């Protein structure tokens, strides 16, 4: 829609003109065409198969394949992370087709799984052998010491027997023989039990076998890797001597219950020694095998890591291409795919060239056909932003995406948002700190944009241009408010005030007087610390808020005029823009005028009184509150204008809209009978292709009533809402003053270096934490609210939808 005015178009003011296009692609070049369009990133596909479920679509199997490959790639990434191999940046390896990639991924996965299983088995065996070796060593010691004691005792007995009398040898021999025949063989079970369970183990063994076992435990010095769980556990080596089969089965069951691993043990010293050497040999063998296996695994993972990123992107791209292909529909001959979608008008040539390229590259005989459709559907909104304007546009979009081709508040937000923030933040010391911090972010843009930052850092980094604009404006308003960490400076010449007489007696009672010209730039430095500082500054900042607010609201209404002109909406201009301007300016524009006149003349008129009595008793004389000649008559005129503006906004527009609707659809009252039947059919969504529009007069009237009341009441509440500029600015300067005076100056007064250093540290933390972070967030939020509500409700519809093209660059790095 070309605008009728001679004003040239402005970047970013309105959405790029968009068109609905249809592309017919032959089957053989379909995949390549979509891939090239994805690289170009300027075409938004419409889903032509919306009523089909994901499984009914043509390319469902391909997507499943891609999903499988993505799973394998995730598996590789986990393995690489476990082995500590990092994936290097994109290296340009060989370009392979999807089938080749699938095969390669499959074989690599099988190899990795096999290697993992093998190494697990080997590790298990290794751990078992380690435990067995411990059992052999410890029990060997036990048996040796026991044997030594036994031989000593035996020798002593022998000695005693030999030395004994001849009287009782027979009996003893009998005892001996009976002893040997009745000797029950002791069985034993040896193994390792976890140390924390060893006491319970002992107790249960004792109870279960009624005390008929002998248990000897020996703690192992260092923790041992348990073969079953794979963790390092403190263990004790134990050996249980029991007699009889029943006791043995009980002991075995208890060992299993406590997870004690059992290992066989011989009491033959020679065999023990042999076992130990055998076990040592096997352990050494296993260790080398495990090391070789690990080495092989790492080398395979490293070879994967070189191509990992490339494979990952390829799989992601293919998946998105197949998703897009699923959105296309077949044409009648089933030999071509039909795509419908939105694209910007300026991109037409690029898209046509890309399609031609795809056709030639895939050696197809027919080229793709690109045709433009005409529709009444609302196109998506597309703004060509660069990295600077993108963050401001995001702020506007967060409230609502602009309707197609309506005026974009983002243009003015780039300046007014940081400006209103700065009005609330006003301190050039803090502004410089913010500026330096953001400068670091901007100078190291390249490194940060490729890293993965935390949530908060990500937000701060994304908004770095917003923050730097905010800090630059804060430095300016800080100079105007004359505050640097709440300290004023006399930069622009001497203060305008001086004592009334040389002795300065009245300085603390009546005060100083103005002797020179007004301080040329900003607030006079004398005010800081005086008793009348707050009344003066409050009056100044409140009036400033009203003036800035009225200016911004007028800008909003003027933007609605530009919208009405662009869309050739005469009704809106005469019956909405004009009465709105008249109403707002006859009340609050007049208030702004009074403020300025009072400042210029220095009159003592009470503006509250003037405004309120303008409504309550407009015919009264003004007396002391007269600011200029003819004020009473001007007030009567403005009151009258405001009063007629309200019905002017409310009544004519619905009637005119009704007349317009009747004129437009004058010929459609008579329709052929056949068409009537069609209308009653299931096609109850005529709006999707711009059909016959409904017009309910009562609905339009109510809508207009709501709009009028909202504007009239809103003009008072919105103007008052701008007083938050005063409130936050006051809070900031008071906090800053408290931290300066009560922390820094107090610490200075003690004349001690330690207290001074503590004071400085507390001051820095308080400034950064409260003033730079919290106050910034607070001022940001309030400036945002002022824009979203008070500025934008004058003209912004914000019910469009965003242009989201099929683009590989826009595919997020989603860590599924």
């Amino acid at each position, binding site marked *: 829609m070309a605008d009728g005015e001679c004003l040239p178009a*402005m970047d970013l003011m309105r959405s790029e003109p968009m068109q609905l296009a249809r592309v017919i692609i032959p089957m053989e070049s379909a995949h390549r065409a979509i891939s090239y369009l994805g690289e170009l990133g300027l075409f938004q596909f419409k889903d032509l198969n919306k009523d089909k479920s994901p499984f009914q679509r043509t390319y469902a199997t391909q997507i499943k394949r891609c999903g499988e490959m993505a799973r394998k790639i995730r598996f590789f990434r986990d393995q690489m992370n476990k082995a500590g191999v990092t994936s290097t940046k994109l290296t340009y390896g060989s370009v392979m087709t999807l089938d080749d990639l699938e095969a390669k991924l499959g074989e690599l996965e099988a190899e990795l799984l096999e290697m993992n299983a093998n190494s697990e088995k080997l590790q298990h065996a290794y751990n078992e052998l380690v435990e067995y070796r411990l059992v052999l060593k410890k029990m060997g010691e036990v048996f040796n010491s026991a044997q030594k004691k036994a031989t000593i005792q035996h020798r002593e007995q022998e000695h005693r027997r030999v030395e004994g009398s001849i009287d009782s040898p027979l009996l003893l021999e009998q005892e001996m023989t009976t002893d040997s025949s009745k000797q029950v063989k002791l069985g034993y079970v040896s193994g390792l039990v976890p140390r924390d369970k060893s006491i319970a183990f002992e107790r249960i063994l004792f109870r279960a076998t009624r005390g008929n076992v002998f248990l000897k435990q020996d703690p192992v010095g260092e923790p041992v890797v348990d073969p079953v769980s794979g963790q390092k556990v403190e263990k004790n080596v134990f050996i249980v001597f029991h007699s009889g089969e029943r006791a043995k089965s009980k002991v075995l069951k208890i060992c299993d219950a406590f997870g004690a691993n059992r290992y066989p043990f011989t009491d033959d010293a020679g065999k023990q020694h042999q076992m130990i050497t055998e076990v040592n040999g096997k352990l050494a063998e296993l260790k080398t095998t495990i090391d070789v296996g690990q080495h092989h695994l790492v080398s395979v993972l490293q070879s994967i890591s070189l191509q990992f990123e490339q494979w990952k992107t390829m799989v992601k791209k293919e998946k998105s291409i197949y998703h897009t292909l699923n959105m296309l529909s077949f044409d009648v001959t089933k030999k071509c795919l039909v795509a419908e979608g939105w694209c910007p008008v300026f991109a037409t040539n690029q898209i046509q060239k890309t399609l031609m390229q795809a056709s030639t590259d895939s050696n197809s005989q027919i080229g793709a056909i690109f045709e433009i459709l005409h529709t009444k559907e609302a196109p998506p909104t597309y703004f060509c932003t660069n990295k600077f304007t993108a963050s401001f546009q995001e702020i506007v979009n967060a409230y609502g995406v602009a309707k197609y081709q309506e005026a974009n508040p983002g243009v003015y937000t780039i300046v007014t948002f940081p400006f209103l923030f700065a009005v609330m933040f006003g301190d050039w010391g803090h502004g410089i700190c913010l500026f330096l911090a953001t400068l670091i972010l901007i100078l190291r843009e390249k490194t940060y944009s490729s890293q993965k930052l935390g949530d908060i850092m990500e937000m701060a980094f994304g908004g770095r241009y917003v923050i730097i604009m905010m800090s630059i404006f804060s430095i300016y308003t800080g100079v105007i408010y004359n505050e640097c960490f709440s300290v004023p400076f006399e930069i622009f010449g001497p203060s305008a005030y001086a004592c009334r007489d040389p002795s300065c007696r009245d300085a603390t009672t009546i005060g100083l007087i103005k002797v020179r010209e007004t301080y040329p730039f900003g607030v006079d430095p004398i005010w800081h610390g005086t008793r009348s500082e707050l009344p003066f500054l409050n009056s100044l900042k409140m009036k400033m808020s009203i003036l800035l607010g009225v200016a911004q609201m007028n800008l909003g209404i003027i933007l609605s005029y530009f919208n009405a002109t662009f869309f050739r909406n005469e009704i809106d201009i005469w019956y909405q823009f004009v009465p709105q301007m008249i109403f707002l300016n006859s009340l609050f524009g007049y208030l702004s005028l009074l403020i300025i006149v009072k400042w210029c003349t220095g009159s003592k008129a009470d503006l509250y009184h003037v405004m309120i009595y303008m409504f309550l008793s407009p015919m009264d004389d003004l007396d002391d509150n007269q600011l200029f000649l003819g004020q009473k008559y001007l007030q009567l005129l403005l009151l009258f204008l405001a009063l007629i503006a309200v019905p002017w906004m409310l009544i004519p527009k619905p009637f005119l809209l009704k007349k317009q609707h009747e004129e437009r659809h004058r010929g459609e009252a008579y329709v052929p009978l056949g068409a009537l039947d069609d209308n009653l059919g299931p096609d109850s969504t005529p709006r999707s292709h711009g059909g016959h529009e409904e017009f309910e007069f009562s609905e339009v009237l109510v809508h207009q009533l709501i709009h009028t009341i909202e504007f009239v009441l809103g003009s008072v509440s919105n103007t008052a809402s701008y007083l938050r500029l005063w409130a936050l600015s006051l809070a900031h300067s008071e906090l800053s003053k408290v931290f300066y005076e009560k922390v820094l100056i107090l610490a200075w007064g003690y004349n001690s270096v330690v207290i001074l250093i503590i004071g400085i540290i507390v001051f820095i933390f308080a400034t950064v934490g409260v003033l730079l972070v919290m106050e910034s967030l607070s001022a940001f939020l309030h400036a945002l609210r002022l824009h979203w509500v008070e500025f934008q409700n004058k003209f912004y519809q914000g019910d469009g939808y965003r242009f989201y093209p099929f683009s590989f660059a826009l595919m997020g790095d989603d860590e599924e």
Partner: protein
Amino acid sequence: MGFILTTLIFLVIGIIACFCARICCNKGPSANLFHLTLVITATVCCWMMWAIVYLAQMNPLIVPILSEGE
């Protein structure tokens, strides 16, 4: 007098900034108009803020009363 002088200074600075923007990034008429809008808006905002603070101090109704011990 001081008011008009400084207003003229703001005007001159604004014009210089417009020229700088035109020289530094000359990217076609729509982009130029966009940069011009930004510069003008910034200049107007800054001027308004200064003018408000200046006018408020021209004929003051409250005078500074020093606090004890200064």
